[in-house]
């Protein structure tokens, strides 16, 4: 890959990073706190691309033949000129994430990953007082922690609303899941809540639901890692759009 092509790739990768960082696209892949770094890296890559073009023009206008020659892929580096340098072909691979990000923009991890991985629910350090409201809006992870490790004592029998996506395991057992994320989607882990009560008749995997209902003492073990899965007794279910940040990031704070 010669310098012009490298400048183009740098520019496009930088542009894609800035695009992902300034829209909500980046939230599908990394934690919200990385936004300034994603945008900053994109800007640096764009500046590096522009600087490459700028110095390349300057070089050709001052007529330094050797350096201009270096920019061409004409096989000179094979006849032993030590000074002629070319980037390895592995650089071409940088085109792949660019295409994946711009053309496909894969969705946030969903039910497929959730069912392959064991629930990552951990014992909460403390149980904050419930916020006011009826129903009380809790994050799915918060509810699961209170239900599994506090036997619902801190829930006090109140009506609760939680949001997550639907996952159906091979036997058709429905779960409401939220992927919890620490840094990027590679370390995302599901927190699962089993469903009971008025389960909607048709459940589409990966569709997002807001469920209203109450705590139930029913619980089970995740077949993958023997983790605790608490249940939720549904009284009402309504479809909701995918939230702006599809992951639960409460572990980051």
């Amino acid at each position, binding site marked *: *890959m*010669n*310098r*012009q*092509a*490298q400048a*183009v790739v*740098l520019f496009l*990768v930088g542009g894609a990073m800035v695009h*992902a960082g300034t829209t909500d696209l980046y939230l*599908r*892949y*990394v934690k919200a706190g990385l936004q300034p*770094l*994603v945008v*900053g*890296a994109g800007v640096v890559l764009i500046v*590096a*691309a522009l*600087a*490459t073009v700028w*110095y390349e023009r300057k070089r050709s206008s001052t007529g*330094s033949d050797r350096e201009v020659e270096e920019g061409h*892929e*004409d*096989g000179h*580096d094979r006849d032993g000129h*030590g*000074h002629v*340098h*070319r*980037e*390895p072909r*592995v650089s*071409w*691979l940088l085109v*792949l*994430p660019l295409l*994946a*990000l711009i*053309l496909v923009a*894969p969705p946030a*991890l969903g039910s*497929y*990953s959730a069912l*392959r*991985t064991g629930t*990552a629910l*951990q014992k909460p350090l403390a149980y904050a007082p419930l916020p006011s409201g009826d129903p009380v809006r809790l994050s799915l992870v918060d509810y699961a922690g209170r239900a599994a490790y506090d036997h619902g004592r801190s829930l006090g029998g109140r009506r609760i609303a939680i949001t997550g996506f639907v996952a159906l395991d091979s036997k058709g057992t429905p779960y409401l899941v939220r992927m919890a994320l*620490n*840094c*990027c*989607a*590679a*370390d995302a*882990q599901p927190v699962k809540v089993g469903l009971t009560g008025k389960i909607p008749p048709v459940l589409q995997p990966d569709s997002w639901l807001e469920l209203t209902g109450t705590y139930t003492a029913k619980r089970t073990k995740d077949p*993958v*890692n023997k*983790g605790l899965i608490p249940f939720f007794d549904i009284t009402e279910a309504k479809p909701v759009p995918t939230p702006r940040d599809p992951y639960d990031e409460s*572990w980051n704070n």
Partner: protein
Amino acid sequence: MSITKAAPPGTDQRDTETPGTEAGAETKDGQQGWQFSSPLVLTMLLILVVTLQGPIRSAVSAPVMQSWMTVFVAVVVQALPFLVLGVLLSALLAVFVPPSFFARALPSRPALAVPVAGMAGAVLPGCECASVPVAGALVRRGVAPAAALAFLLSAPAINPIVLTATAIAFAGRPEMVVARFVASLLAACAMGWLWQRLGRADWLRPQSRPSDEGLGKGAAFWSSVRHDVMHAGGFLVVGAMAAATLKSVVPESWLSLAADNPVVSVLVLAVLAVLLSICSEADAFVAASLTQFSLTARLAFLVVGPMIDLKLFAMQTATFGRGFALRFAPATFVVAVTSAVLVGAVLL
């Protein structure tokens, strides 16, 4: 990756420049008077992909492909900012800091410089992607390789951000933070001293770089940035593909089979750390969730991961040459596991 494999044995000292088979075709084209240049290839590739985007999208709509692509893009998007940070630091070191600075800052005896450089790793706030280019720049600036390697290994594991993340993930077990710090520093220094005794300068073959002679400081700076991003970035993509394959294809239930045997569990988590290639700022949370494993096994996961994984191996190949990476990576793995087991036995 395929390029370096395609290169015949014995040419590895030039593997960063050895053209693959495609280059032969291009040369032939050139001889026929038709310049088949890389901008042209790039333009055609982009046009082709944009034209075929419908079929491509439907081809990757299966859940396993979607999940693969999400993890792949996530690893790249997450690591690229830290890579860029490391590349900028490395370019600053290479262009603006005179070699005499390091001669004064580090003890002249390499045996002493190793622990000093290892401790200095604590000040580079970032993950392993940033430390590879910085260590490469240190070697080129004349720092003793043993010290630069100790820095390379310790920086991603013992900086404050990573230790804080470990403390949060293992809340209520502060000994885990101490054990991680001690075991990582110990392994980094051991590798530095090992290199000093056994390492040979000709194994370490820093990539040939575009010559900076006759360039202004600005031109040299941006040339270094461009070169490092293209080079290490390409290898980062290789590592991201490997991690995505593991995460989306291999079932996690295989892991539980290994958790019962204490020896096997340490080895399994150490190998898992190599394969998963998770950023060192996040690996503590993954380790915390592997509750079926012993604390020592999880410590091995935390010590090995930042020192050697697929992504790092690929990037070390890019920065120091294949001959180096092939020897350094297995040695690092063994030393890191040993250190984790020893420290685990004492502290956990």
